[in-house]
């Protein structure tokens, strides 16, 4: 007998090969694995445009705040009284681009203003006053999305609680409720039987 062939099929051994061929009929035939039992998984909320909008708005607000803050810092702590003169001219209506000159104008690119509507430009003097920044109105709070199963949202407990559960918590909760519902339904059978027998007994007693 070839021990190597018996161990890892290296080499030849006619006797063992003959046994293998004869026993091949009993070999495991590949088939499908059994299906796992159905599980309820928390709904994977789709990324909606609302959440994107909310995030985008928050990002834009932060960016705006940063820009205003930098600008305020540069104006407020420059150490000199800044005066800006905005020249008004007849040509303002045709050329509404405001020319702002400042002692440090060469350090900053000239701002460009798109024409929104014609308006007379007045002479404005800036002084060292705290800059009041009007904050954008906070976006309206978007209510929490109710988590749903793909098939049926009636399966789940109130959304405000479901939204905060982890997958394991949800599984444990569902399993417990299932067990308790079965238990209570079976106990109810007994209770109903007892109640029925008591009521029929009382009817019989009253008839007597």
């Amino acid at each position: 007998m070839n021990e190597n062939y018996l161990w890892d099929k290296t080499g030849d051994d006619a006797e063992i090969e003959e046994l293998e061929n004869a026993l091949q009929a009993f070999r495991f035939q590949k088939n499908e694995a059994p299906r796992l039992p159905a599980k309820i998984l928390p709904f994977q909320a789709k990324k909606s445009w609302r959440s994107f909008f909310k995030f985008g708005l928050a990002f834009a607000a932060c960016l705006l705040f940063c820009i205003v803050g930098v600008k305020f810092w540069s104006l407020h702590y420059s150490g000199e009284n800044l005066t800006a003169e905005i020249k008004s001219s007849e040509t303002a209506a045709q050329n509404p681009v405001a020319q702002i000159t400042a002692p440090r104008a060469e350090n900053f690119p000239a701002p460009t203003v798109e024409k929104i509507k014609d308006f007379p430009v007045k002479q404005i003097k800036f002084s060292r006053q705290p800059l009041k920044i009007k904050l954008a109105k906070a976006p309206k709070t978007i209510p929490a999305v109710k988590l749903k199963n793909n098939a049926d949202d009636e399966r789940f407990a109130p959304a405000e609680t479901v939204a905060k559960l982890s997958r394991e918590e949800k599984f444990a909760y569902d399993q417990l409720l299932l067990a308790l519902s079965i238990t209570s339904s079976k106990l109810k059978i007994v209770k109903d039987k007892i109640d029925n027998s008591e009521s029929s007994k009382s009817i019989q007693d009253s008839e007597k």
Partner: protein
Amino acid sequence: MSEKEMTGNLFFLANRQPNSAQTAAPVRRETILIERIRRGEQEAFDELYKMFAPMVHGILLARVRRDEVDDLVQEVFISAYKNLHNLREANAVGAWLAMIARNRAAEFYRSFKPTEELSEDLKTGKNLKNEANEILAAIRSLPDAYRETLILRLVEGLTGNEIADQTGLTPESVRVNLHRGMKMLREKLGVKE
């Protein structure tokens, strides 16, 4: 700094690294699959089934009637999934499945009579099948350790290393079981001849 010096420095640093990272055992495929199955992934379960179903089939074939084996293979895996929380060491899932299979077989054990099975095939007159039944019956009459290992080798086609890896036995034990089992089988078949 020359390249040689830099390389030398790197080696010096590497040698000072804690050894745990170097000696850590590689994560086995079964461990990853078990974690995925615990999360309910059917694909991972299918893969585990594909890996271990032949072994489970062989263990059951060594113990119960052939017509029971296929159903029991499915039951073993379902039972394993349901009791996955009892599996302490994911690396040893093979040995654990083998244990479930043996326990299941013990529950469903029905005494078989090789002569009964042979008589069915004699009616059909297929000589090849008779011989196969005879060999299978002879293997099944061997002691537990030998018959299981022999069936895994000769019927399911697993190598010695694969048998050891999947069942959790040491390669030495498998080698001994195969050697002694084959010797006994040859004697049984030789006696009949």
